[in-house]
């Protein structure tokens, strides 16, 4: 197992995530895709820390940070999504365009 494999894995995850974000109509699906992108990035962090860093602990802290922050983010985002669902009864992003110019 070399670094390359991990980078390719994270790239694939990132690509899947971006694809998901761009194509999903459902807000929750988009949220999940965002998680996938973040996890792709986490794998990158961990892999680099493991193979390259002098002190792997420093690299391992980042994924933990990201996970913690994304958990908060999820909480906030889900709250918004739920309240939006209550108001609009739909979560189709193509129809949610109140912020257009």
């Amino acid at each position: 197992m070399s670094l390359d494999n991990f980078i390719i894995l994270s790239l694939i995850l990132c690509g899947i995530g971006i694809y998901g974000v761009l194509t999903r109509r459902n807000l929750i699906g988009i949220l999940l895709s965002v998680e996938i992108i973040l996890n792709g990035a986490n794998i990158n962090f961990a892999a680099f820390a493991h193979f390259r860093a002098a002190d792997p602990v420093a690299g391992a802290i980042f994924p933990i940070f990201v996970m913690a922050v994304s958990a908060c983010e999820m909480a906030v985002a889900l709250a918004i999504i739920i309240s939006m669902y209550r108001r609009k009864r739909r979560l189709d992003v193509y129809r949610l365009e109140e912020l257009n110019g």
Partner: protein
Amino acid sequence: MADFIFTHSYLILLFPLLSFALITFFMLHWQNRTVGKLAIVLSGLSLFYGLLTVVTYLISGLGTPDRSVLCFDLAWLNFSPELTANMGIYLDPISVMMVFVITVISLLVNIYSVGYMKGDSGFNRFFALLALFSFSMLGLVVSSNILQMFVFWELVGVSSYALIGFWYEKPSAVAASKKAFIVTRFADAFFLIGILTVSFVTGSFDFATLNNPETAAALNKTLIFGGLSVNLLTLTSLLIFAGGWGKSAMFPLHIWLPDAMEGPTPVSSIIHSATMVVAGVYLTARMFPLFSASATAMGVIQFIGAFTALFAAVIAITQYDIKRILAFSTLSQLGYMLFSLGVAKVAADGHHGADINPLGYSASMYHVFTHAFFKCMLFLGAGSVIHAVHSNNIMDMGGLKKLMPRTYWSLLVACLAIGGLFPLSGFWSKDAILLAALQSGHKTTFLVGLVTGGLTAFYMFRLFFLTFHGEPRSELHDVHEDPWMTLPIVILTVPTVTAGLLEHFFIHYVTVPGFNEPSHFGHPGWLPWAATGAAVSGIGLAWLLYGQGKTDAASSLKKVAGPLHTLVYNKFYIDEVYLFVTHKIIFGGIAAPIKWFDRQIVDGSMNLTGWLLQKGGKGVRLLQNGQLHFYLGVTVIGLIVILFLGK
């Protein structure tokens, strides 16, 4: 003593000003009688001090080398450290003469107006404006510098405007006042340019400096203006003269004067015949030393004067409105005064070796003097008639001789005077003018003057016979003579009859500055006979045609003349030409396109800028469509572009 009187000569102006201010600010709603009395008293005081000044001047001022007294001269408007305009009082023969004329006539017209304006709702306003006019006119004639003259010149114009439009509810009066002001203002714009030019060249506004031969020499240079070479002296002289051109209503700027007769008759009498309209002549006389340095300028003045004299006399023959006839006669007489000044420059082929014939100048001023009295009288008389008949049309009159005897006899004297019959004042002044023209070698002008003299006698007596002789041609009610109105007319017969005695005085003392002795030109003995002959034949013709108040012969003559008569009766359609120029060309052809241009092009381009910005904003707005996918996609694409292009 003399110094004391001169120092306080501002009082001549102050009394009318006081009268104006008192009436305007405090007495506008007072009883008419009180206001009338106040106006007469203050006008009388002005006359009193005017006479005092005149007498003092005759005693102590006339003897000074240049025959002038500068009573005072205070700085008024400072333009730059080198150029300051003053306000002062300058007495010399012509200004003293005008002060006398104005104060006398002003008092008489004030008295007359008490009768004429009786019962008019604007009685008090009328006297206030009349006082304002007297003040401005007096200020004009005593000006010590040309800018002061311009200031009062405009004030005279505005009081004339206010008095022509005195009956402001009459649309024709309002239109006439507007016309008078705009036409004179048009001329004044050139006057102002002329003032700018001389003041720039000389660094001064004072008449003393402007009339200095050095000024003429400094101005005497040729300018090339886009291939057109102009003599600056001629140009400047004509620009300044343009002011007088408008004010004295010379052709083709004469159109305002006949219309100005919409004003109350006392106004026509003082402003539009005796005083204000001679301001143009006065200006020309005042600037004579400068103007006379340019032969072209003098030629123009002479030509325009002579032409207007004849032109107006011809029109006067065909008119029916009594005041308009008098207005055209005023134009004609003003033409006399101007060409008389013009002929003071000896013709190039004149064989006397002299350049200036001071007689032309003296004769002109003399005619200003005599004309003021008899023309004022004619207007006052006409006013009495109108007041009695309630019509301006001489065809509605006739047979007034028995009903208005005092007016009849006074007007007879005035008509004889303006016709130029011995021994009345008009004879002497016209004779002097014709003599000057003959002496200076301007034969055409002389002939025009002679013919116009005959025409003048004819149309004046046409008016006279149609008004007073024969039987009344309309129903007349309650015709009477108001003593307030008759008194001034009767008083005016005195100067009309006796002013002839002053000829010697004028010829010797009222001369071109620097010509203290009259030069000795020949005096052909046949001239007075020729002039009298022309006048008598004019009167005779009038008697033949209209003598018994009949109009049959005249109307058959009118049929013969046909289109010619129509042309003359419509004043050669000059007014129509003006209407065309102003409405069609200036309003329709210039102002309207400019209005369109401003709204559509200039403002349009501003609006276009705004519109473009708005459209641009709309274009940018499309990017902000609220679609998360779109934003993210753009972000990703942007990221990729940066990653790959960044290398």
